[in-house]
């Protein structure tokens, strides 16, 4: 049984100390690695990565808040990081040490006015799941099971300093440049602050559920506002397996395709119909029910898609197969991806790169069906991405892209990752809903 963690390091100094300690451990791992290399030439880098990843993950896990969320987000970037890192970081998605029960009781009493055992039958004194900013308990009322999510104390106040602490360490420990990490850092900070607002989360959840509940094979929890508050959210418990565990249970290809399709449809519907989307597609946020339905269980990270961004994005997609068209160029400019006043050399470089990457990444969007299980597809994306990241000519470009891409790309990237993990082949022909096309025509 996992030992309970009864503290969150709150003071900046303490948290910095924790990360500095991890930096020292990583240094020690390098020493061990090179010492081993002296006696055995066969020692490969993966054992070093594994040791580093374990230490980094443990530090992030203990600090919770910002660092853990960083770990979660970086785990979405499989193949961007060495495999050992992503395996360790993937743990952040659903396995973190929980806080003490006396605090849970106190929080519940303060928020709801009663102790959990007075409201629920069989309230779990230990957390059944813990994540970056809160933990989940289980209880039932009149035979209906509920998930009760409670937020760690002081998390919101600690976030900004957490993120600022993480940035330099993450840069050094993960071997990624500050410029590459910065968009993640900014996004995490913004999203984490949003995620600490449980009142907002409840409202966002109700909006998405109302807009998506008709989707076939997709189920959502029912929320209990009277048992929710600033630091508590109570919702019906969705029985089933977490997406990762479900994939590990070796389901049939047909079942994986079906879940993949539901995920795809869920996101396409949100983007094109609701313009308001669940922007945290990692396995810990999805449950597969015993009837192979897709359960969506977390609504903390939501992205509102502004109309002007959506119109330009749609234009980009509609003319994405005619990369030399005026409309395609206009969309690039509107989205801040291309600066037509930049020097000719820069414009040519950007256009070349963008056309190449758009053709590659946009493949599923322009296909009737797409097999996300093709590792070659992902390998070529990461290969090209890595090559581009090393291209010094691309640094300091005048066009940096709309800020909305940060959330938007993260969602797409996360969705692609999930579909790849599912090894799913799905119908992707609904990217342009008929009514959307009719309106734009």
């Amino acid at each position: 049984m996992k030992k309970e963690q009864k503290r969150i390091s709150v003071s900046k100094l303490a948290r910095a100390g924790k990360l500095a300690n991890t930096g020292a451990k990583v240094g020690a791992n390098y020493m061990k690695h090179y010492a081993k290399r002296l006696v055995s030439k066969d020692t490969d880098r993966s054992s070093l990565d594994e040791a580093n990843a374990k230490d980094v993950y443990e530090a992030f896990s203990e600090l919770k808040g910002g660092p853990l969320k960083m770990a979660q987000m970086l785990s979405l970037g499989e193949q961007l990081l060495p495999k050992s890192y992503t395996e360790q970081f993937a743990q952040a998605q659903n396995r973190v040490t929980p806080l003490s029960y006396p605090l849970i009781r106190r929080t519940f009493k303060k928020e709801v006015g009663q102790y959990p055992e007075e409201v629920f039958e069989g309230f779990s004194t230990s957390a059944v799941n813990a994540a970056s900013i809160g933990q989940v308990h289980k209880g039932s009322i009149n035979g209906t099971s509920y998930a009760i999510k409670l937020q760690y104390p002081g998390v919101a106040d600690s976030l900004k300093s957490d993120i600022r602490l993480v940035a330099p360490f993450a840069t050094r420990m993960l071997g990624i440049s500050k410029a590459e990490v910065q968009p993640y850092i900014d996004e995490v900070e913004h999203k984490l602050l949003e995620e600490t607002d449980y009142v907002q989360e409840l409202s966002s959840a109700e909006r998405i559920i109302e807009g998506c509940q008709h989707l076939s094979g997709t189920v959502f929890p029912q929320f209990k506002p009277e048992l929710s508050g600033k630091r508590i959210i109570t919702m019906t418990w969705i029985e089933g397996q977490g997406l990762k565990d479900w994939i590990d249970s070796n389901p049939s290809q047909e079942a994986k395709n079906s879940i993949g399709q539901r995920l795809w449809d869920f996101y396409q519907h949100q983007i094109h119909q609701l313009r308001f989307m669940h922007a945290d597609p990692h396995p810990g946020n999805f449950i597969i029910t015993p009837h192979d339905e897709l359960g969506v269980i977390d609504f903390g990270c939501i992205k509102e898609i502004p109309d002007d961004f959506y119109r330009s994005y749609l234009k980009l997609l509609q003319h994405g197969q005619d990369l030399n068209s005026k409309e395609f160029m206009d969309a690039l400019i509107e989205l801040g991806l291309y600066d037509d006043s930049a020097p000719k050399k820069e414009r040519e470089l950007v256009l070349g790169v963008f056309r190449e990457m758009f053709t590659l990444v946009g493949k599923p969007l322009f296909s009737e069906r797409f097999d996300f299980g093709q590792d070659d597809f992902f390998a070529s994306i990461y290969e090209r991405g890595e090559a581009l990241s090393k291209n010094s000519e691309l640094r300091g470009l005048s066009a940096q892209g709309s800020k909305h891409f940060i959330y938007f790309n993260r969602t797409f990237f996360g969705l692609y990752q999930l579909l790849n993990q599912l090894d799913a082949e799905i119908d992707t022909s609904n990217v342009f809903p008929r009514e959307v096309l009719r309106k734009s025509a």
Partner: protein
Amino acid sequence: MAKKSNKKKNQDPRLEFVDLYKQFVYTHGACPANLKEFMSFGDFAFGDFKAVFDSLEALEVATMLLYFKRANDAVLADEHSAALSPKERHLTFCYVLVELVGEDEIFLQQFLQDKKQDGSYVKQFLHVLNKQSFEVLRSDGRFSEQFEKLKINPKKSALTNHALGMIYFYLRDKSADKQDTDAFIEKSTDLLFRLTDTSTLMSMFDLGKFMASRKETVFSWD
């Protein structure tokens, strides 16, 4: 007897004086400078006061001690407390204590501000506090028997003083909903229990015994 207090039938007379003391602080925005000033405010007989307290300072010590006693009694009265581990019991005690302190926050802010400079009060309060035996702060485990023989209980003392430190933290906490106090309780309790873990204390005890037994040889220059 205290005339300004709202006298309740069969109430412990000490509690009446504590209530009166709080009324004084609320009314004057400061602690009474001496017993005469307090007597004048409360309009009570000196003999009534002396029957339960030796001095104004003794009343002031009792006023703070009362929060600990009430927290202790509340935890013991909770039907769930018997099932709690020592660490959970301590955490529960701390959370009850901050609830009680929260009810009197304005009084305590003023009281502790005034007493901050008074070394004699702090010394006496700590002396009395550490002599108390709060049931919920009892330390379990084999090591306590060993330390009992030496008439020391480092864990009990640490737990008691930790709870006092938590009151000071709470009163200075400016975070939303005093969330930092919760976090402080969680993390400091964890540290406290790690530091006073049976095995750690036993190791310290073992080392101390070893050193004491060799003091005439290895640890002596004579």
